[in-house]
């Protein structure tokens, strides 16, 4: 319990990951599935960015003079997650576009109704 509270960033991100994962798997509404997917991606971003943060250090931008390596937070996870955001946005866009197509073809976005209708 102690460990969970001291590492509250990690705990929060794992809980969010679980919520996203469950939403993605269990809901039958396609929009809710996509929201779950986004929550899952965001939780990983929170996890990695929290890993790069060092208590008391400043953002890695040199203002006046270089203060030395130990004075800045780790910039790598942040820049990685910039790529992660781009990836998440493009997958969401494709998934939403496909959902619109589904609605045009089947008239519903509930996955269980679509499966009942079949391909007739």
């Amino acid at each position, binding site marked *: 319990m102690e460990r969970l509270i001291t590492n509250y960033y990690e705990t929060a991100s794992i809980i969010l990951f679980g919520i996203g994962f469950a939403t993605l798997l269990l809901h039958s509404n396609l929009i809710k599935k996509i929201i779950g997917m986004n929550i899952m991606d965001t939780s990983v971003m929170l996890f990695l960015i929290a890993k790069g943060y060092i208590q008391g250090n400043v953002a890695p931008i040199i203002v006046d003079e270089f203060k030395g390596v130990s004075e800045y937070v780790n910039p790598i996870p942040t820049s990685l997650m910039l790529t992660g955001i781009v990836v998440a946005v493009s997958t969401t866009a494709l998934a939403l576009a496909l959902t619109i197509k589904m609605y045009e073809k089947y008239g519903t976005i509930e996955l269980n109704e*679509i499966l009942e209708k079949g391909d007739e």
Partner: protein
Amino acid sequence: MTIIKSFPLIGVLILYLIAFIMPLIKKNSLVKFLSVISFSTCLILFITCLRYVIYNGSYFYKIGHFDAPYGIEFKIGIIECVIAVLFAFISLMVSWYSCYSIEHDIDERKIPLYYLLINILVGSLLGIVFSNDMFNVYVFIEIGNLASCGIVVVKGKKENIKAGLKYLIMSCLGSGLVLMGIAFLYSMTGHLNMTYIHESLIKSYMNYPQAIIITLGLFTVGLGVKSALFPLHTWLPDAHSSAPTSSSAILSSLVLKAYVIFLLKILYRVMGKEIIFNTPILNILLILGSLGMIMGSILAMFQKDLKRIIAYSSVAQIGYIYFAIGLGTELGVVMCIYHIIGHAVTKSALFLCSGSIIEKTCQKEITNLIGVGKEMPYTLALFFISSLSLVGIPLLPGFVSKWYLAIDSIGVNKLLLIIIILASSLLNAVYYLPISINGFFDEENSGGKIYKSKEKTIKELMPIAILVIAMFYVGINSEGIINLIKTALA
């Protein structure tokens, strides 16, 4: 000769650059020509690189002149080059085949975009194979993910959209898990480069016993979803059977395999033997692989649709690949890579044959395909030879991998596994052979059919024939290929 070292990167870049020229071109025939040209250039580049690597040993290739822990790195070894040659060869044959038949499957205006997606997909798969940087691999996985969904939905029919969305959701789940795994590895080691992660893990893995197991679990499930490991395969039959023929061939023979290669890299290059032998991961892979071998074949027996049968058979064959990894010996890894090669060649030939049969007869159900051997003798003969390989007839690659897997099962003292291999081969025979037998020998029902009336021209059958010849080569020259892979592992 340093230019040869850049060939893998040049190959990947050529595919991406040519991909983005395609939508600008109005003439579809020119687009097809460009696609074939880009794949044949890649094939030549990778063969040259393979020769270089065989003589001079593997090397690391820096991208952008930054040194290893900071910059992105490719590791080019014999295995990577063999797989790259295989990918370039299969995609060349598939795109050659699709030149003649793609109009039957998709709208004429979408053809340039289709070839764009194929090029991007193959480029990203090659990136996964070559890259030595975890996050770089993740980006390539996501590109491949979007492109492979694209080539499923391109047909624009109801069932395609449904299969494509199912595939997209499942593989997003998979890549989410992979990204979480990468985050765990980064937080444990502070590196993204596989070599450095390994060095740092070897020193400190005793401190994180649970984190290592969680990471391995995340990667196994994530990549298992993407490569259709047995209980996670639910998206595969829909996606592979509804996609256009050339897409199914590429999806089944290349896309699944790249993720297996990545899992092999995680197990042996990032973690290393010392760590994975302390965890139950290999046994889990062995059990899931065996289940896949049996259940994939059993599910295939109940299918009516020709392409769905072949799609379920992919699940069984992926089971063989995971079975080989799960044995945990050096021979197991070698046979995993050999089976990847053998299955890629065989399954693409099978999909292309069944695609031609469906295209010419307009029948999908196998009960309606009785007597098709009279109408399309050459196509069905090619189909028959390829299905013999999956059943396991000597000289063909399927037999070689089953033989060595059986030997290796004896080697690790698990005799029960031989029964599983035998049962799976028999099940393969149960659903593959009736298609060809009914096609050729059912005289009563094929009375009204005219000999060779629906046969494709020789020109159109050439790519399939070359794939079948390549299959014979892989089977007959199995000794050479296995020794080559063994020298790479040693």
